Structures are given as structure tokens and as C-alpha cells.
């Protein structure tokens, strides 16, 4: 046995209460470009003071594909697949936005049935976009069930989209003055059958999150912005309406057949992350209303114009008449001819006003085309939204603005 040692001398400083200054130099941290909580590939250079974000600088361009340059070297219809890839969660809204610009330049009207089909597809895509955003907020705040519910609902709708357009994501479904194909026989009943389940899942998400103490604590009064400031930053869509500003292109300038539907525009009051979330839940319900009305009002008729300068002739005419062959050949080899002009056309995308500034010189290609992606101004305000918040708040704020890399980085 060894002798018991002397008790150790008392520690001069309790580590929990020491009074020396901690190292408090600001620290610069890279978030992204490949980060599980970053949607798409975006890099944030964040300057931290402890856990507080003092400054954040988004760096974008990792997904830049040269949308404008490629489009300027394609025919008018060849641009359509590029527009799919702008917002790959709601591609049909982009298709419609672009093709409405071409129609405005030509001065041609879309057929009535095709307008309804575009509204149907567009509102389905809008619901999908909102579901993706809500699911991601839930996922990244720890509510994995919400993500699964949202994705289940989205899958149901994407199946309908696949039956309608032939593709899940890269649709390219619109054509000048119409759409590529009519809805398949019995499709409207399939949509009617799946919509209650989508609504049920949305209600489930609503009950899981909207009154959840943890969720409210994480999102309420986080990332607040006032209406005037949001307009100054160029906000549109749910992020602007969350601040209480009533601006929705579908109501302010009813394009297509949106003036024939009875729906309302939900508005927020605080402009915080919670409002941006709850607004999207509400918009899903409104889009659901529009879908049911569009199904009820769906008129019969042609889905594309019979003007062969702009739309492919029916196959019977191509195979049986010289005019049909010629029109087909000219459209395939040269594309449509759009008269000279410059337009800015705007529609309500899922994240805000989607604009296309299109210039034509009458030579068969878009001379210049630049897209006003709704996410770009909103992302540029991210430093303003997250300034002064903790790192942990960055993720819900970033989710709630629903940045889509494809459209922001073009």
C-alpha cells in the first residue's frame, strides 16, 4: 500500500467562471457551395461574431449555363427546354411565361382550351413548388415527417404531370398559341381523385407545423423585412405578400384566364419566416380551388392554332398535302418567324414575378432574351435578412425564400 497522497491544491480558477477575455475576433466561414442545407449550389461567405452573423455575402454562378447566350443562338421553340431548367420545380410556369412573351411579340392569342390546360398544369406546378419549399423547411428544422408528407403529395402531382406532358420535370409542353398535346382521356378524373389526398397531406403538414412550439420559436420574428424595404429589394411573390403588400400578377394583371376563377390572395403581416411559410400553405389551398374550377369550366376546342406559320399542321395534312409538308418542313428547319419588337412579359411564378425581356429582330431567333428570375432579387437581399441572427437561423430563412439555383444562376 502506498501512502495516501496529499489532497491536491485547490484550482486557482474555476474554468466555468474565469474572467479572462475570450478570443473574440470575427471569423469568416464558408457555407457551401455543397452543403446539405443549401438548396442548389450557392456559397455564403459569412462573417461571425461568436454565433451572430455580422455579414453574409452570397456568391452565385456555380450553375450558370449561359441561358441568354444559348437562347440567342436557338430558334424560338428551341428555347423552351432551356426555360424548363430555370425553375426545375415548377417548369410549366416558366414555359408559359416565355411562350406568352413570344405570343405577345407575334400578336397571336392562345386558344381557349389551351389556356385552361396551361392553368391546370401551372397550378399543379405551383403546388409542387410550395410543397418542396415547405418540406425543406420542415426537413431542415428536424421535422422529417413533414418532408415525407410533402414529397408524397408532390409525387402524386408529378405523376399527373407525367401523364399530361410525358415528362416529370423537363416538360417543354407549351407551344406558341397552345400546348403540345391535349390531356389524355380520363386524366381529369385522375386529377380529381388525387387532389383530396394532396389537400389532406397539406392539412397534416399544417397541423404538424403551424402551431408547433418549436417551429414557431424558430421561425417567428426571424428574418423580418418590412413591405417598403421588400419592394426596394425587388421582392415579389410569397416573400413580398408575407410583408402584407398585395401584389400578385394573377390579380393585378389577370393574364390567361385567371380572371374567370374565384380565388383569393393570402397576405401576411410580419414579413418573417413564419409568414412566408404559412402563406405557402394557404396558397396551396387557393391553387387547389383554381384547379377544381378549371376542371369544371374546361371548354372543348382546339389546343393549338390552325395557322401553320406558327403551329405544326396535323399529321394527316403533312402526309396528304403539299402545303402541309411545306409548313412542316419550314417550321422544323427554320422555326417560326417573329416580327421585330421588344417586350417585357411577366407572369406569376411560384416564387414571384417571372419576367422575360425579349427582343426580336425578325430573323427567326430571339435577338436578346433576359430573364427576371424571381429568386435573384430575393437572394440578393439575403444578407439583409440574416444580419444579426444566429447561424442556426440562417437555414430557415434561406429555406423560406426558396432559392432555386437554376433560375438565379441562369
Amino acid at each position: 500500500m502506498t501512502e495516501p497522497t496529499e489532497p491536491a491544491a485547490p484550482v486557482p480558477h474555476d474554468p466555468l467562471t474565469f474572467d479572462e477575455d475570450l478570443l473574440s475576433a470575427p471569423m469568416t466561414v464558408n457555407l457551401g457551395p455543397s452543403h446539405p442545407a443549401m438548396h442548389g449550389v450557392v456559397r455564403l461567405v459569412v462573417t461571425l461574431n461568436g454565433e451572430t452573423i455580422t455579414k453574409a455575402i452570397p456568391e452565385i454562378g456555380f450553375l450558370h449555363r449561359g441561358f441568354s447566350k444559348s437562347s440567342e443562338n436557338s430558334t424560338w421553340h428551341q428555347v423552351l427546354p432551356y426555360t424548363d431548367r430555370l425553375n426545375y420545380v415548377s417548369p410549366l410556369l416558366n414555359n408559359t411565361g416565355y411562350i406568352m412573351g413570344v405570343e405577345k411579340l407575334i400578336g397571336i392569342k392562345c386558344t381557349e382550351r389551351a389556356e385552361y390546360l396551361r392553368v391546370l398544369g401551372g397550378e399543379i406546378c405551383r403546388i409542387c413548388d410550395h410543397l418542396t419549399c415547405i418540406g425543406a423547411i420542415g426537413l431542415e428544422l428536424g421535422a422529417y415527417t413533414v418532408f415525407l408528407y410533402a414529397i408524397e403529395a408532390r409525387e402524386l402531382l408529378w405523376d399527373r404531370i407525367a401523364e399530361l406532358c410525358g415528362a416529370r420535370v423537363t416538360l417543354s409542353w407549351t407551344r406558341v398559341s397552345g400546348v403540345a398535346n391535349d390531356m389524355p382521356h380520363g386524366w381529369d378524373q385522375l386529377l380529381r381523385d388525387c387532389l383530396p389526398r394532396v389537400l389532406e397531406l397539406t392539412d397534416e403538414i399544417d397541423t404538424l407545423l403551424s402551431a408547433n412550439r418549436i417551429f414557431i420559436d424558430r421561425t417567428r420574428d426571424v428574418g423580418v423585412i418590412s413591405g417598403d424595404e421588400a419592394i426596394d429589394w425587388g421582392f415579389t411573390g410569397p416573400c413580398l405578400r408575407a410583408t402584407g403588400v398585395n401584389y400578385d400578377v394573377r390579380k393585378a394583371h389577370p393574364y390567361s384566364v385567371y380572371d374567370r376563377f374565384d380565388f383569393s390572395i393570402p397576405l401576411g403581416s410580419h414579413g418573417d419566416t413564419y409568414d412566408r411559410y404559412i402563406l405557402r400553405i394557404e396558397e396551396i389551398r387557393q391553387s387547389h380551388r383554381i384547379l377544381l374550377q378549371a376542371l369544371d369550366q374546361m371548354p372543348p376546342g382546339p389546343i393549338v392554332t390552325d395557322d401553320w406559320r406558327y403551329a405544326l399542321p396535323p399529321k394527316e395534312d403533312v402526309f396528304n398535302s403539299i402545303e402541309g409538308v411545306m409548313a412542316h418542313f419550314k417550321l422544323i428547319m427554320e422555326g417560326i418567324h417573329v416580327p421585330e419588337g421588344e417586350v417585357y412579359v411577366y407572369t406569376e411564378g411560384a416564387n414571384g414575378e417571372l419576367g422575360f425581356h425579349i427582343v426580336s429582330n425578325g430573323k427567326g431567333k430571339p435577338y436578346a432574351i433576359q430573364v427576371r428570375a424571381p429568386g435573384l432579387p430575393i437572394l440578393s437581399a439575403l444578407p439583409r435578412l440574416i444580419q444579426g441572427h444566429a447561424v442556426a437561423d440562417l437555414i430557415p430563412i434561406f429555406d423560406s425564400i426558396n432559392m432555386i439555383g437554376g433560375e438565379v444562376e441562369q
Partner: protein
Amino acid sequence: MSQALVDLVREKFPEAVTGSHSHRGDEVVIVRREDLVEVIRFLRDDPQADMKLLRQIAGVDLLTWRTEMTGGGSLASIEAPEYALQKTPQVEPRFYVAYNLYSITRHHALRVRVELRSDDVKLPSIHSLYKTADWWERYLYDMFGFEFEGHPNLQRLLLYPEFQGHPLRKDYPVRKRQLLVPELDFPDLIRGPGPGPGGAGLPMSQTHVGRHNVDPDAYD
């Protein structure tokens, strides 16, 4: 309705407005470059105009406006050869910048256009009027090389700093290749084997994590 807006601007700035037209319902006002900021400030603050939302700033290069080939010939014109460009008559003013403004309260829109000559692509920044102009002006600087005077941080927005040329100019060939950017040292980052700096020595993508192309002191 928007025609009243054009008249309002013409009345207020008889000197500055050099032209206006309307196409498919879009009203356009062409203003002199020197008066751009004043005109836009007036449109933003005047209660009759009240255009608080700057939707977008777009740029157009008119170099090949007349000479571009038609439709199916587009494939041939993808590689803009230099001799063809030398034959192209210079169009002046070669560029214009279009500011798409909108009023949320009054629901009217107006496009303000500024024309630029190819030898002088400077124009005043409206960053002080609209915060959203920050990124749009950086975008146009990136794509066209317009120099916005007074912009606090005029850097490329989508492309990387070493990129040569401005891709949306019409004399930039669509298939032009860019030089590979040399690897940068990034001593703080410890990497395992594999491609990338410190790894197998293969060139990394041109804007990888370790690049110092974002200055944390910007906007200070």
C-alpha cells in the same frame, strides 16, 4: 394609362427625353444618359408615377441587328468569325440598357432606355435609388461590360474574375473556350487524395471552394 406616364416624363424633362414609343402595350422612354438618375428618381418619388419596384435591368447589343442570318442559318453563325465581324458595319449607338419599372399601387409600367456608344460604355448607377439594382448592374457588367459609375462593388455576378470578355456581347462567339484558371493555394484546407488542390493535381472547377474571389470586406 401608361401614355399619360410618358407625357408626364416628357413634360417634366423636355430636354432629357430623346424619344418614346410603344410596342404591344409596352411604353418606352429613351432618355439621355446624364439625366438617367434624375428621371428614375422622379419616377420613383412622384405620387403620380410611384414606381417603387425595379423589375429588371436588361441590356441589348445591336451589333448584328441587321446582319444576322435567318432561322436555320443560325447554326452557321454560331462561330462568329472575326473577318465577318470586321465586315459588319459598326452600329452606333451600339448598346442600350432598359430599366423595367413598375408601380405596385398604380399598376402601370414603364421602360426607361439609355443608349450607349461602343467607345463609352459608362453610365450612372442607380444603386442609391433601388437596392435591387445592385445585382442587376453587376449582372450587366458581367455580361456586357457596362461600367456603372458609383456602384459600391462592381464585380462579376455569375462568372469568375478571370473570365475574359463579356459573353452577351454579339461579338463573343457562343462556343468560345476560356483558359483554365490556375490553381490557387488554400493553405487552411486539408484535402485527402483525389482531384483538386493538394490532391492528384487535376484542375478544379473554376470557382471551387478554395477561391478567394469573394471579399468579405466588400460593402464596407
